[in-house]
């Protein structure tokens, strides 16, 4: 059982900052340079460290603005931390359910390929899973129409289906545990559950729902204002978190 010590995610002393001002303008810089001298920094994540062993499920809780989603995006590689390090030990990773981002003019089918290729899958791997994705998404003939014609429900169904069926070794799940209508919600929840409980897969879930986390997670990380407030088993952390939030 040497596998237990094998980590899938190592986050060490990660700090992530946002600049408060957004963009600069050449014209404004020339005409009013003093306005841009102030560069306020906002630190969303202030030195967080944790490890997730392979096959484990970590839940992240915290109030709004505590840096949960920022941290998740950093693990997904969408942006790198300003300080510290995130090591995924060579595992493939995807942010589940929100999709990879679609090109509105292209058909659903083409977007499946684009998303898959972006996630690092080969044409062949996508070919193999294509039918399954289309079937799961319940889009029917719409799959060959441009994504811009989709309703928001159809859009998220497709997004979910792609990331759920093109499985990566590490899955990051941000909040939305169910999408679409009631029927699809149930189906996607079941699918997600089966993905999460697969022992080969490492999962990080951000959620506000203690019930969901209690059911699914091995350990819980409680973030508060960008710092780790508590880390431990569900039984240890969740009651205290609920008490704190009420």
């Amino acid at each position: 059982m040497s596998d237990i010590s094998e980590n899938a995610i190592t986050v060490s002393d990660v700090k992530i900052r946002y600049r408060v001002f957004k963009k600069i303008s050449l014209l404004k810089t020339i005409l009013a340079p003093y306005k841009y001298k102030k560069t306020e920094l906002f630190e969303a994540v202030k030195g967080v460290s944790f490890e997730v062993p392979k096959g484990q499920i970590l839940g992240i809780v915290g109030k709004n603005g505590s840096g949960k989603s920022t941290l998740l995006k950093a693990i997904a590689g969408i942006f790198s931390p300003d300080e510290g390090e995130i090591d995924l030990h060579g595992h493939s990773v995807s942010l589940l359910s929100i999709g990879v981002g679609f090109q509105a003019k292209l058909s659903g089918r083409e977007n499946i390929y684009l998303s898959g290729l972006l996630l690092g899958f080969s044409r062949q791997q996508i070919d193999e899973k294509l039918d399954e994705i289309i079937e799961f998404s319940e889009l029917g003939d719409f799959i060959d129409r441009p994504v811009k014609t989709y309703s928001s429900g159809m859009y998220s169904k497709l997004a979910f289906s792609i990331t759920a069926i093109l499985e990566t070794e590490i899955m990051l799940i941000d909040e939305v545990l169910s999408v679409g209508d009631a029927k699809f919600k149930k189906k996607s929840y079941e699918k997600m559950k089966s993905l999460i409980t697969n022992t080969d897969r490492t999962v990080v879930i951000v959620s506000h729902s203690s019930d969901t986390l209690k059911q699914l997670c091995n350990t819980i990380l409680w973030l508060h204002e960008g710092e780790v407030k508590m880390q431990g088993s569900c039984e240890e952390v969740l009651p205290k978190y609920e008490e704190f939030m009420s």
Partner: protein
Amino acid sequence: MFLKKIRFFKDFKRFFNYIVFAVKAELKSEVADSFLSWLWWFLDPLLYMLVYSFIAVVVFSSNIPYFPAFVFLGLNTWGLFNKTIKASVKLVSAKKMIVTKVYVPKFMFVFEKLGVYGFKMVIANLLVVGTMAIYRVPITWRVVWIIPITLVLVVVTFGVSTIIMHFGVFVEDLLNVITVVLQLGFYLSGIFYSIDEIGVKNHGQIYIPGRVPEPWGEWLVKLNPMALLITDLRRVLLYGENPHWVMMIAWFVVGVFMSFVGIKIIYKFENSYVKVI
């Protein structure tokens, strides 16, 4: 530095299939978008050629041989450079949907644009071939030089575009500046007039002096890569002359250097793009 280079090639390999698919998909969606919209890939240069022919032939009484082919080459070549750079300014925010959800080395988007506009350039250049056939332009073996010249065009365009793309993320009015600069570049690249002389003086063949007085003409061809590329494409294709070898090699080196700098800054800063857009 060597490691960075390896990372570039690794990333290029990893995302190559994505680029190819994205280029095809974008072209396909353009074709599918409206009936016969691909016709504009021809009509655009054709109509502009007529406009510039009027200006050049009627207003400035130009007597350049094979003038339509001359203008097409200028327009199509400039088109690739111009469109890719303009698209690069806002490219990261245009790809917001992808950038905020998955990691992609951002210079891949420049490759995507190069692929799309490159394909359109090739299609539009069929007009050059057509006009050359109509005029029965004598072909020499020097046409093979279009391959290295096109390579320099791609490298220079990529280098400039990656750098522009990076600054485009942070500077909100960069597009205004770039548009003016490109407009100037258009007039300084000899699209509808010849900067350089055509043919050799007192040689018994065609000879047309350049429109820009020396030494300015020479400097323009040397310092403006687009002027150089367009001039040399015409020389090898239409007039059976050799390209300016030294300057071509020099701009290739500069292009590679710019690409290197562009890729390096993108790798360094791309992860903060998401926080700005």
